[in-house]
């Protein structure tokens, strides 16, 4: 059985009357990728920054790599052992890729060979380019390189692919998968369902400061995935209302209609109805997803911009 890398118990963080994190508890095992999934403002980054000792918890206990983060002496030691890709990562514009990495590297007693690291992250062609001249994907790869400069046991990645194009996202995913192969423990926050599904061994879904579900990704999908979903795009409003009347489980999101199907035999019924209405061409059927899990557990849809009722 793997040993525990992070243990959080009864964590609470309040800002005045606002409760950003509301009594959450979880554990992360060594060598696993753990994703904290939730919309913007759910409390993901606050939780992460408390784990990194960047913020003080209002209540509860947090133990990272065996160190209690409320103890300042522990924090100095702990910082040597983890690497961080902060949300909206930025480096110094006028310095090159290698110079920026060197700045971070000099803050540690020991660090990896920077040329090798640059090679690993496929940044060798841009090693002497200034940060301001890099594309979004390359900047993010430099951020990940910065998180690995001290050869950490544990890596925190806060929204690692936010704002990237699909290709750059896949590049970042590939790097994260490589890190897992190297045995590093990865704590990932994201609001992308697909990202959590593809990368994470275990997922915690956080909503309004509370963890509403936690477990292995597969188990969550099986338990709360809600079966398959029939999606119809660009449906006129009158027809959308008819479908809703016929299938009360259907939900209308903008001009899309989604019908959740729990039993396989219901698929035929839905398809024949939609074919009669001449809507078969805009029809898609999706597998169970974390989006369904989120919808099932919170009653709201999760979109790229946040949640949508």
């Amino acid at each position, binding site marked *: 059985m793997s040993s525990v890398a992070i243990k959080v118990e009864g964590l609470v963080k309040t800002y005045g009357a606002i409760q950003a994190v509301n009594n959450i508890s979880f554990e992360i095992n060594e060598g696993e990728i753990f994703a904290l999934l939730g919309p913007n403002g759910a409390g993901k980054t606050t939780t992460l*920054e408390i784990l990194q000792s960047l913020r003080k918890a209002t209540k509860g206990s947090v133990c990272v790599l065996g160190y209690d983060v409320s103890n300042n002496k522990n924090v100095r030691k702990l910082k040597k052992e983890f690497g961080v890709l*902060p949300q909206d990562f930025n480096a110094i514009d006028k310095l090159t890729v290698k110079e920026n990495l060197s700045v971070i590297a000099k*803050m540690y*007693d020991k660090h990896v060979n920077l040329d090798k690291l640059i090679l690993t992250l496929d940044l060798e062609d841009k090693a002497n380019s200034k940060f301001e001249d890099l594309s979004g994907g390359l900047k993010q790869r430099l951020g990940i390189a910065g998180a690995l400069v001290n050869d950490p046991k544990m890596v925190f990645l806060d929204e690692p692919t936010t704002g990237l194009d699909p290709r750059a996202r896949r590049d970042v995913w590939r790097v994260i998968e490589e890190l897992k192969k190297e045995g590093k423990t990865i704590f990932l926050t994201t609001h992308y369902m697909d990202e959590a599904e593809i990368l994470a061994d275990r997922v915690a879904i956080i909503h309004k400061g509370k963890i509403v579900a936690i477990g292995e990704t597969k188990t969550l999908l099986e338990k709360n995935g809600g079966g398959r979903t029939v999606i119809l795009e660009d449906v006129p409003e009158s027809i959308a209302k008819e479908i809703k009347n016929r299938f009360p489980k259907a939900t209308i999101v903008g001009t899309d209609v989604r019908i959740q199907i729990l039993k396989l035999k219901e698929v035929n019924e839905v398809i024949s109805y939609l074919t009669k209405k001449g809507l078969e061409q805009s029809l898609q059927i999706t597998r169970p997803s974390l989006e369904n899990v989120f919808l099932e557990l919170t009653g709201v849809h999760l979109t790229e911009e946040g949640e949508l009722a």
Partner: protein
Amino acid sequence: MKKVIAVVDLTLRNWFRIRSAVFFSILFPIMLLLIFSTVFGGDNDPSFSLFVQNLDTEEDGESSDMSKVFLEVLNSTDMFNISEIPVDADANSFAKDEIGPLGGVYRILIIPEGFGSNIVLGAVGNRISVTQSTIQLLLQEERSPGTPILDQQEKEQIAAGGAVLDNVAGEVALEKTHLVLVFDPSDTSGQVVYSILLSVTDSFSNGLIGVGENISFDRESISQDTFSAVDYYLPGLIGAFVMSTTVIGITSQNTEFRKRGIIKRLSLTPLSRSEWIIGSILAQTVLAFILTLMMFAVGWAVLGVTAVPNLLVVAMVIAGAIQFSGLGMLIAGLIKDIESANAASNAIVLPMMFLSGAFFPLDSAPEFIHIISSLLPLKYLIDGLRFGLISGFPEGALISLAITFGLAVVFVIIGSITTKWQED
């Protein structure tokens, strides 16, 4: 220490690659130094142009001896560049032709006919008056009560002599000599020139009456002969730009790095807040030294600056850089927005430059300006640099140094408190 040096390294590398920072912190002060030295006379003492028309001539057309002496006195002050206008020329037309259409304003001093003889007669009449007063005292004095010094016959002889002196005095009755200064009302230096001339004329007149025929005028100047005008501007410019470079440098770096998450990223490494603060201050001190050295280099190579920095000047630059780095940290700590923080640092730096006498002496400023100036930290940095560089009394810099170091400690403590390393 390795981490502190890393902070210095990143700050300097970043700074030197921001063209606007290099321009405004290094090249702009040097440009200003060149402009000041050109406008205010380079390696000469400040002087005013002055046309003089001497109408006091002898029968042979030569200028009178007394007017020649007066002109020599004017020249010896080194305050004027004198051009003479011929006796028979129309003074205004001559001066206008001389300076040309783009020459700006001009001033003409007219020495009237009879200037020399009036001075001589005035001096004689004054001497007679003094002699008469002395004799009256002698006539009234007694050796002992009831026993006069002089007998009756001696008194009568002296009284007769006194009457002769009275007659002579009547003939050399004092007649005022009227010098005329013609100047343009828009000439901002006209009043200054008039005041200087008045002072020189008073000295000339008093010298004649007080010393008699052996007149001599010693040149007295507030400046020391070994220094040139640019030596006086240099400490003010160095002080002002050490302040602006460090205050604006720290403010913009801290606010920008904080907004872009770079400080947060660094705080997630083993770098501590105190190492970041020390490194930032050290980097600004290095920049302040580079600026100071470049200004001296240009001054020595191009402008004939003769002042040489000593240890006190080095200490003043260090104290100033630390002090204003602390002020920069304070501004950046209190104002989070980049644009507002930069505007605030400019709003503090620019008035302080003028109110501390960095560019212009405050001698003629109203009293309240002196009070405000004495409350500004830049004043003590500039005073210390001036004392250390040109006063010939470098020990005088010690008080300014002590005040600047004291303020440096205060600013760095307050600045450090406002520099956050951990979120709330």
